[in-house]
């Protein structure tokens, strides 16, 4: 055995480039597997731990106002394990140095006892003292964005009255892992925060003494959540209850889930591609090695080595490659995972999100890739050991060639003998060529996803903020107001154009399918907040009937012409069946849209508004803001540009890294596949190429013969690669598209060009590396022996 191992080491040394290429491709697959699976497991583990330790509620419900005496009835709902009634409201904040209004959602903390649900995870400081004034706990993301520390004060307008709030603690909450301002799609930690305050104090501020407007429930394990929701809805109905919802519709929980889902979408596909290609590469390389060493194998057998010993010997090649790959992949995956986890922390706030490898997945990945590679080797070795030694010691019978099929078309008169050699070599061993082409196609396919994502994001932003939402600012009123409220918004300094809207929360259902949505009443021929179809054309608002987000229509399984049931949760709570007039294209959230007057009629109101979309004269911004700050009825202000900027920032951070990683992996894959293919081709053609050199062909011409063959494969791989990549990108983006965000599949020539360039550049580098070997061809050695 010892001397066989010596042979192993010698052979490995001559094959080190190839082994390295194989190991790297395999390592990329493992790195991705370890990173993605680790991220998924880490997020899931930490989320589950956090939710259960901090007693994240199962059911949530907002209402107008109900007396605290209602609580025993809520606690008596079957399957309810715990109830917390709270006061929840909005505050606008005046932060020195910001030319913009920041907003906070304020949530009450019980005065005299600890929280029962959604327990805060206190990072610094303490809870407000019972009976204290204006003491608040602030969510970490907001505090961090402004470098607030316990002891700092914040100026706020709460329900129309100005207050100095004093920060006493900085905390995290399982309710706000992802802190999304209402109606936004990305966190904006400078402009949106979560504050917690003593219940009695908040009750004072919001005129809610002895009452609550928000309730959260824990359902006992195995309890029927849907029944709890129904019961809750029934009890709260007289108190202006909105629809109860569970974690699946809870903003933060939904976004965390979506992140995990989109990781799942890529966590398998890409690693499988890499591991499969690596297995092909191993198989091809080892098959060639075994064929080259056919006579050696025969001799070993003649000396009395068993077929098993020989099989084991060749398996060790795979073992070395796999071991190297595991080492690199494990370290790479671990480091990448830890790096990405840190990025996650910017968006997802968990108490202790750390990277945990998913050992089972890693094990599976390793076993699967090793097993496929071993299978490839086994097939090669089996063939070699099956031959009786006497026969194997004779050289292989000469290869049979025939004119390639393409030549039937008569093109042979147009091409050089060198090109013909390439064609015929490919036709004689189509599988080998196919594997190389397949690997290259995959390398071409991989950069399509990040390209499509980047262009999809660009398109989404453009669609959302240039075509659909053309307002500079959207103002929201604390409570719906009359038309004079709209005229006073229109008359604010600097306002150029103004468009009112009236939105109400509602349950929309079609058969047993239902969702909680915001039903928006918009003006006909809106110029600012426009509804568009997939072709970017404005969709006219129907005079009667409702327009749905396409995703919502999909969820409800309803199309134009169908009828949906709308149960409005505000005012006199009308319930109507309305026809679906059509669908609109949007990429975030799900919504339903009607003519504003229809909504008003439905609500039995006059010309009410919930707020207004405005365009502004930028020069008047400061004066505009002063007025907005002074006006107590304005509860929220959303700046389009700020939203766009924070979106840009987030995408820049997340996708910049992802894109670099995908490109890097694609380069490794392309380089590895071509290099491996080139080395095998070189080994098979050494004799031909050396003969050409003897006959007076220059090095360049000879390199051309070899590279011509590989270049042909590369070119053949490009188109299918682009096709596979587009399909893969569409499938993955489709899988990652949820009710919260959808990624448009945008495939541009830039993406395709990048993919092609990556593959061509990697090919050129491997050609150069292999070309060096042509310089060192042993001309004389080749003449001494028959192959």
């Amino acid at each position, binding site marked *: 055995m010892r001397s066989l191992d010596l042979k192993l080491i010698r052979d490995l040394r001559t094959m080190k480039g190839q082994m390295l290429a194989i190991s790297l491709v395999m390592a990329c697959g493992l790195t991705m597997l370890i990173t993605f699976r680790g991220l998924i497991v880490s997020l899931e583990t930490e989320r589950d731990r956090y939710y259960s330790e901090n007693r994240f509620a199962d059911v949530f419900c907002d209402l107008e106002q109900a007396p605290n005496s209602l609580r025993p009835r809520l606690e008596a709902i079957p399957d309810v394990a715990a109830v917390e009634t709270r006061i929840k409201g909005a505050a606008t904040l005046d932060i020195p140095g910001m030319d913009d209004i920041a907003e906070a959602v304020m949530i009450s903390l019980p005065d005299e006892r600890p929280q029962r649900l959604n327990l805060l995870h206190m990072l610094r400081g303490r809870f407000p003292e019972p009976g204290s004034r204006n003491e608040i706990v602030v969510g970490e993301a907001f505090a961090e964005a402004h470098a607030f520390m316990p002891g700092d004060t914040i100026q706020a307008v709460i329900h129309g009255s100005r207050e100095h709030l004093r920060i006493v603690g900085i905390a995290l909450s399982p309710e706000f892992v992802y802190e999304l301002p209402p109606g936004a799609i990305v966190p904006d930690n400078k402009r949106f925060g979560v504050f917690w305050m003593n219940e009695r104090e908040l009750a004072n501020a919001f005129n809610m003494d002895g009452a609550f407007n928000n309730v959260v429930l824990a359902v006992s394990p195995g309890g029927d959540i849907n029944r709890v929701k129904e019961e809750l809805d029934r009890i709260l109905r007289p108190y202006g209850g909105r629809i109860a919802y569970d974690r699946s519709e809870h903003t933060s929980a939904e976004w965390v889930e979506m992140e995990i889902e989109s990781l799942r979408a890529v966590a398998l596909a890409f690693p499988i591609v890499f591991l499969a290609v690596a297995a092909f590469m191993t198989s091809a390389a080892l098959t060639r090695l075994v064929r080259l060493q056919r006579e050696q194998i025969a001799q070993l057998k003649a000396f009395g080595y068993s077929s098993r010993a020989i099989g084991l010997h060749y398996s060790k090649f795979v073992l070395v490659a796999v071991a190297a790959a595991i080492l690199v992949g494990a370290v790479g995956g671990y480091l990448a995972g830890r790096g990405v986890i840190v990025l996650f922390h910017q968006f997802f706030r968990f108490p202790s999100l750390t990277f945990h490898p998913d050992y089972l997945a890693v094990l599976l990945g390793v076993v699967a890739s090793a097993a496929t590679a071993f299978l490839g080797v086994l097939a090669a070795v089996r063939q070699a050991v099956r031959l009786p030694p006497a026969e194997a010691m004779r050289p292989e019978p*000469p*290869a*049979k*060639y*025939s*004119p390639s099929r393409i030549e039937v078309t008569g093109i042979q008169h147009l091409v*050089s*003998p*060198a090109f*013909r*050699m390439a064609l*015929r*070599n490919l036709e*004689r061993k189509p599988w080998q060529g196919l594997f190389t082409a397949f690997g290259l196609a995959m390398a071409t396919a991989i950069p399509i996803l990040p390209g499509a994502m980047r262009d999809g994001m660009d398109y989404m932003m453009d669609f959302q903020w240039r075509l659909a939402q053309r307002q500079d600012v959207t103002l929201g009123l604390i409570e719906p107001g009359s038309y004079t409220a709209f005229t006073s918004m229109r008359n604010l300094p600097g306002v150029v154009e103004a468009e009112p809207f009236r939105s109400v929360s509602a349950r929309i259902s079609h058969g047993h399918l239902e969702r909680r949505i915001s039903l928006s009443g918009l003006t006909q021929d809106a110029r600012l907040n426009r509804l568009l179809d997939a072709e970017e054309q404005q969709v006219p608002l129907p005079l009667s009937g409702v327009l749905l987000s396409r995703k919502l229509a999909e969820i409800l399984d309803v199309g134009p012409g169908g009828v949906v049931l709308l149960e409005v949760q505000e005012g006199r709570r009308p319930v109507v069946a309305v026809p679906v007039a059509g669908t609109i294209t949007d990429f975030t959230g799900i919504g339903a849209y009607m003519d504003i007057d229809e909504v008003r009629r439905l609500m039995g109101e006059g010309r009410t508004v919930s707020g207004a979309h405005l365009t502004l004269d930028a020069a008047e911004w400061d004066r505009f803001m002063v007025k907005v700050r002074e006006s107590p009825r304005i509860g929220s202000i959303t700046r389009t540009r700020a939203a766009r900027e924070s979106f840009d920032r987030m995408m820049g951070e997340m996708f910049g890294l992802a894109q670099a990683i995908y490109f890097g992996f694609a380069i490794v894959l392309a380089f590895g596949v071509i290099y491996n293919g080139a080395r095998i081709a070189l080994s098979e053609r050494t*004799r*031909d190429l050396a*003969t*050409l*050199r*003897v*006959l*007076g*062909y*220059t*090095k360049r*011409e000879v390199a051309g013969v070899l590279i011509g063959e590989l270049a042909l494969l590369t070119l053949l791989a490009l188109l299918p690669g682009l096709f596979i990549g587009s399909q893969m990108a569409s499938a993955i983006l489709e899988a990652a598209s949820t009710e919260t965000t959808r990624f448009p599949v945008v495939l541009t020539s830039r993406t395709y060009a990048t993919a092609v360039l990556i593959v061509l550049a990697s090919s050129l580098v491997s050609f150069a590396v292999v070309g060096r070997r042509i310089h060192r061809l042993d*001309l*004389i050695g*080749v*003449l*001494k*022996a*028959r192959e």
Partner: protein
Amino acid sequence: MPDSADKHTTPAGSEPLFEARGLTKIYNPGTEAEVRALDGVDLDLFESELVVLLGASGSGKSTLLNILGGLDVPTDGTLDFRGESLTEADERALTQFRRETVGFVFQFYNLIPSLTARENVTLITDIARDPMPAEEALALVGLGERMDHFPSELSGGEQQRIAIARAIAKRPDVLLCDEPTGALDVKTGITVLEAIARVNEDMGTLAMIITHNAAIAEMAGRVIHMSAGRITEIHTNTERRPAHTLVW
């Protein structure tokens, strides 16, 4: 020294094609494994002569032929071709020399298996300066009929004749054959030798044949004997026997 009376082998007064002086090739110099494959070879070769190189295995025949053909470079000594130094030529010039001037025939044919007989020849006619049509070269070696066959479909002798056709298609000045009949039986060996002799006669090509077979020497103008890297004897045949009359 060659007999100047035999006009056929050493044209009197004509300049030698190759002029080798003190040609030496040492493998692994300065180590225990040092081998003097050539050890001070002086040799003149003339246009249109047919030379047979004889010697025991390991005596340096292939080494000499490879250096003459620009496939290898000597460790020491000088080699001129038509007065131009080959020993000072760089890699690119040697490639050019092989491309334009030399035709090789080897024991193992060294054909490209993926190309047909005709295509193996066009491989050369594509890059040579003044080639003959591939069909003509194949006809010269008597293979006009089987041009579109792949090497694996041809016998050893036929394959070797393709190799000769490939070597002569460029109308080379020199035809260097290293054991061209080594892998062939007598009958096919003779057809191959006939082809070489015909090229030598019809085209006035200098032909050098390495062989272990002393009988073949009878067809040569001159016979060079080598031993341990040196030329031990050069014998001029007063009478050359046509290839088809040889027996061994």
